[in-house]
């Protein structure tokens, strides 16, 4: 346990010192909210403005992209070699990827919390049901981080993991209406879009904020939790120490 925390702290420091990841987790989503919010402000009503919509959906998009951060923290070339020493040291081998999950989760949570506070203060984005929203966002983030780690364990490289992740995140975000609403494209498209997990997450968030409706929160939380546990089990089964040999 001590080693897990030592490694996680080092991984966190690695992430926090990396300007690219700070930009990707803070400036990028805010910039996207500002640009898309401004360009589409006339298309939205008074109750839910464009900034209100994109303030939630693009943060969800950013949360879903956290898998790339965890994959980088796990198998980036300059990290991969020192990982060998962690294997040599006493302690559980699984510490190596649990530490990446913890570090990326803490890092991304801080960055996205900053994003949300800034969006609420500067763009007056409407937010309600804050504890439930934190729970939902945290689980989405953990889901994405664990997905990144699991793909690394399966494919053994950061490059392959990021290629797959970026495609998957892009598709579920498009169909989930995170980048633009797909509701106006007919019944068939709407049904296809309802299969996207991103759609469930955004629907759950909007229902909680605007309708005070928490009915979909519990199934979403259960689904995310089960998926996270399954992905951790797959990671435990597929991770091999020899993958750390450079």
């Amino acid at each position, binding site marked *: 346990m*001590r*080693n897990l925390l*030592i*490694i996680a702290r*080092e991984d966190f420091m*690695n992430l926090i*010192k990396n300007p690219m990841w700070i930009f990707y987790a803070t400036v990028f989503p805010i910039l996207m909210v500002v640009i898309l919010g401004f360009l589409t402000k006339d298309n939205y009503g008074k109750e839910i403005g464009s900034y209100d919509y994109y303030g939630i959906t693009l943060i969800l998009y950013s949360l879903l992209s956290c898998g790339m951060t965890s994959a980088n923290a796990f198998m980036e070339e*300059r*990290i991969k*070699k*020192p990982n*060998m*020493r*962690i*294997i*040599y*040291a*006493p*302690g559980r081998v699984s510490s190596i990827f649990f530490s990446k999950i913890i570090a990326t989760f803490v890092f991304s949570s801080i960055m996205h919390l900053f994003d949300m506070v800034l969006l609420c203060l500067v763009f007056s984005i409407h937010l309600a049901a804050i504890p439930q929203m934190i729970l939902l966002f945290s689980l989405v983030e953990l889901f994405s981080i664990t997905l990144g780690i699991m793909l690394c364990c399966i494919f053994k490289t950061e490059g392959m993991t990021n290629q797959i992740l970026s495609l998957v995140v892009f598709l579920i975000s498009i169909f989930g209406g995170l980048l633009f609403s797909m509701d106006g494209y007919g019944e068939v498209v709407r049904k296809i879009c309802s299969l996207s997990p991103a759609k469930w997450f955004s629907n759950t968030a909007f229902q909680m904020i605007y309708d005070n409706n928490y009915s979909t929160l519990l199934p979403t939380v259960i689904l995310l939790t089960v998926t996270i546990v399954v992905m951790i089990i797959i990671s435990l089964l597929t991770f091999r*120490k*020899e993958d*750390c*040999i*450079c």
Partner: protein
Amino acid sequence: MNEILEVHSLEKSYGESTVVNEISFDVRKGEILCLLGPNGAGKSTTINILCGILGYHNGEIMYKGRNVKSCLNKFKQQLGVVPQELAIYEYLSAEQNVRFFASLYGLKGAKLKEQTDKALEFVGLLERKKDKASTYSGGMKRRLNIACAIAHEPELLIMDEPTVGIDPQSRNHILTSIKELSKHGMTILYTTHYMEEVEEISSRILIMDSGSIIAEGTKESLKEDISDERQFIIELEEDDKLDPDSFYQVEGVKKVKKKENSIIITTLKNVENLDKLIAIIINSKSRMLNIFCRTASLENVFLKLTGKSLRD
């Protein structure tokens, strides 16, 4: 008990191919055991198995009489590894690197600081401990790689080609440090391709090829056992007319070669014939300036055992 580590009938295969083939050896307390072998001999696989990074199919590894599997963490606590690759965080300083890796072995507080400084001083990096590893030269990074492995003062240090691609000064520093560590009681298992390093530091040598151990002993005993020849190099005055073929009449002489003003005579080691060779020179009224004897080098032994064909 003199043996720190005992390896019994260790076997590792990848599919049909056996890369480590029932090898057995021991590592004795305080010695520098050098593991030699051509590319693909199975050295790195063996090292990775011992470090716990690779599994194995058959055999047993005993640490101080106990199966490593039953005391894995205790064994790892006493193990330091210097991998062939630089396993350091380039974006951290030398001090941060050593502190981080040493803390994984339970060191903390004042003891951690003391051991970190001690390890950095040992490898000659104390004065630049605050500098990022990315600013270091290749040799300095290699030394930092060693410092990260010794800060927790392991009983057994495994070094996998730690001097690859560095300047002679850094190599000399590393070899001196290794001998120093051995003097202080650390046991070292060392792999390299450089014969002169083995000549300089080894207490014992294991030679591996095609997954098997094909020879074992001290450098002296290997040279003695493997090579049945020795060479006499006789230096004569310039323009000496001594016929090299006249030496073939002496018993044991296998080959005679003239090179500039020297004659190189290869003869069987177990035939005492030096007096007869000198008699030929005296009888021919040649003037001998110098004579010396050369036995087989470790490289000759290595090539004789593993063959001269190229390995991929």
